[in-house]
């Protein structure tokens, strides 16, 4: 599928998870021990043979730049194609930062125009999944579609408070209606914000939107074109997690302790990430670890249960960690009790602390805090 290029929006849903995006983009939120959310989109692209990827950023993107670097760890450091960082671009008529997907696309209209791939795959960074864009493109072509929108089946009660786009399709899979935050019940087709379309069409749609002073891609362009363009839905049948809040970040992280889900996301395909060259994890004689995911470079002297430990975490003697997510280089002192806590990077918890959130409201501790 070398005939497609990728566009990844790294900032679009930043405001959904304000705690974790204080100093970073949604795309650079640490996830599952050693990844960042952008790794899933990037790896899916690479695994689908898409080797030219534009990564759109807006603000707070230092951590993202630091993470992806030249793209080498995803095999995207290339002379032809490869990774293109697309930071905001101040043009005369648009000197402020973009606020919507369409404005972001306006900013990179030159990148879209100058590319020569026939198709474009667009995705956001809020998805944890193993998605085969190649299969979607084949279906797109078979359907004779102008635009294909990827959705997952979901229950209406699992919708997040905002930003839900629900598709209605006819028997052939053609999209008949696109609804924004509808009142719905039972099974719904929840749009995953993954689009496939021809590059020329995207270019024309964005150009046309500029001349008509439109601002919203899905609402003002896609939804308005249901009658005039052949828009098809494509159901992603595999595991699909959408991070829409701190709570869902916690829930979806914990969900990966389920072996079958973990297997689907990580073992049926490679998920690439930045290499840190940590030593393997060391358990000391008194360690007790149960139902947990542990990345490299950890030192475990205490007890860990139902938790996710990122690279370089230390759990000292006599401490108990339960139902928690400890990000990179968190240090837990001796005889602490930690339950339903999310620590951001480089948090230090001193000896004897007893910290607890609860599973429906995990407690978040900011980067570099010392307790």
């Amino acid at each position, binding site marked *: 599928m070398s005939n497609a290029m990728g566009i990844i929006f790294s900032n679009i849903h930043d405001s959904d998870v304000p705690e974790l995006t204080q100093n970073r983009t949604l795309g650079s939120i640490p996830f599952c021990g050693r990844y960042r959310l952008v790794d899933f989109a990037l790896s899916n692209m690479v695994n689908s043979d898409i080797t030219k990827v534009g990564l759109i950023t807006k603000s707070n993107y230092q951590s993202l730049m630091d993470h992806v670097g030249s793209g080498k760890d995803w095999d995207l450091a290339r002379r032809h194609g490869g990774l293109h960082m697309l930071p905001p671009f101040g043009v005369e008529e648009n000197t402020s930062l973009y606020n919507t997907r369409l404005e972001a696309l306006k900013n990179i209209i030159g990148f879209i125009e100058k590319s020569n791939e026939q198709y474009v795959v667009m995705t956001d960074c809020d998805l944890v999944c193993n998605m085969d864009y190649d299969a979607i493109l084949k279906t797109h072509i078979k359907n004779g579609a102008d635009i294909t929108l990827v959705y997952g089946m979901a229950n209406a009660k699992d919708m997040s408070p905002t930003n839900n786009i629900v598709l209605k399709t006819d028997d052939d899979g053609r999209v008949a209606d696109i609804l924004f935050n509808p009142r719905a019940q039972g099974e719904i087709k929840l749009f995953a914000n993954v689009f496939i379309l021809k590059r020329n069409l995207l270019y024309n749609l964005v150009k046309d939107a500029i001349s008509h002073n439109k601002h919203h891609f899905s609402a003002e362009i896609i939804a308005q074109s249901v009658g005039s363009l052949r828009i098809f839905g494509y159901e992603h049948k595999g595991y699909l997690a959408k991070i829409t809040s701190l709570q869902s970040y916690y829930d979806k992280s914990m969900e990966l302790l389920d072996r079958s889900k973990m297997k689907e996301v990580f073992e049926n395909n490679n998920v690439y990430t930045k290499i840190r*060259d940590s*030593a393997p994890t060391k358990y*000391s004689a008194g360690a007790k670890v*149960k139902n947990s995911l542990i990345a*490299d470079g950890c030192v475990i002297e205490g007890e860990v249960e139902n938790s996710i430990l990122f690279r370089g975490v230390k759990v000292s003697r006599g401490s108990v960690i339960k139902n928690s997510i400890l990000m990179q280089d968190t240090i837990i002192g001796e005889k602490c009790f930690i339950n339903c806590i999310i620590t951001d990077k480089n948090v230090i918890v001193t000896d004897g602390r007893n910290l607890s959130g609860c599973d429906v409201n995990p407690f978040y501790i900011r980067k570099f805090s010392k307790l």
Partner: protein
Amino acid sequence: MYRKKECVAMLLAGGQGSRLYALTTKIAKPAVSFGGKYRIIDFPLSNCVNSGIDTVGVLTQYQPLVLNEYIGNGAPWDLDRAYGGVHILSPYQAKGRSDWYKGTANAIYQNLYFIKSFDPDYVLILSGDHIYKMDYSHMLEFHKESGADCTIAAIQVPWEDTSRFGIINSDEKGRISGFEEKPKNATSNLASMGIYIFNAKKLYAYLETDSKDKASDNDFGKNVLPAMLAAGENMFAYTFEGYWKDVGTIDSLYEANMDLLGESPTLDLTDRNWRIHSRNPIAPPHYAGENAKISNSIISLGCIIDGVVENSILSAGVTVKKGAVVKDSIILSGAEICENAEVNYSLIDENSHIGVGAKVGVEKDKKAKITVIGRDYGVPDGDVVNGGEILDSCEA
């Protein structure tokens, strides 16, 4: 174009490592796994980059496929350089001659053209069978300050072990007065580490002479160094203090791995100022299941553990199923230990399969011998593999 490097490192990685038996049937010794995620060659390569040496020739000869693939373009060690970087040097056919590398000195001699292309002042000779962390730039400083033509890194070994090493006699400033190869009654306990720094011009001259000597074994230790000493060149011993282990035998390889365990291990790889770089596996964090009991062990990425693991080192992607027990063992990448299997004091090579209820090895005590299961070997369900057995499915 300006082409010059102060120091070029040449890494001798062609050894077969025959005393590692099944472990080196298909791969060269420097490619043997170590410490969960490393291969032996990561140590000299990482030492090089950490010491500021960015030009390394790796001399390969025996079973180079895995080693070559592992080194690749050198990117994991930051050795993918526009000028310099890592170069794989295999024996080649030249006009008028085509030879395998006959000895360590001959291997370097055949690649003098490579060294000279960087016009170095110094040449550092390394071997690919030791585990250690060493700043070669300190040794180079010592070499320059002492005005040596050749400096040999040396380490003090226990007196009872001197008969296993090349022993160096030197004065308090390090000036070398003599060598003894594996002496019965040593007069010094300073052992050569097989790490040499030469003034480049001297090295070229002595290698030319040595290559013309039909009687020579073309070996640094046996021929070149004694010849230099006899000719009155300035030769110094640089005493290294720190962890250093020759991992040329199964037992020493096992010991070096075990040196990583414990409360304050003798070999510490977590030092962030001296990282050992390696080609990282593409794998998720490891998973410890409901029935996992892991203690005093090292576990790498991608492992799935639902059994008991004690005093052991597991490389990436190892599976230990429910009811299985792994004790005092080293399990290499991709191996699978099935339900209720027991593995004791063993070294299980890559992608081996230990069947349901199988028993491999005996409990570690003073008399026990280590058991080795070779690469891709399958131990059938319920089978018993006795202590000290070495099983290998590969054709040599």
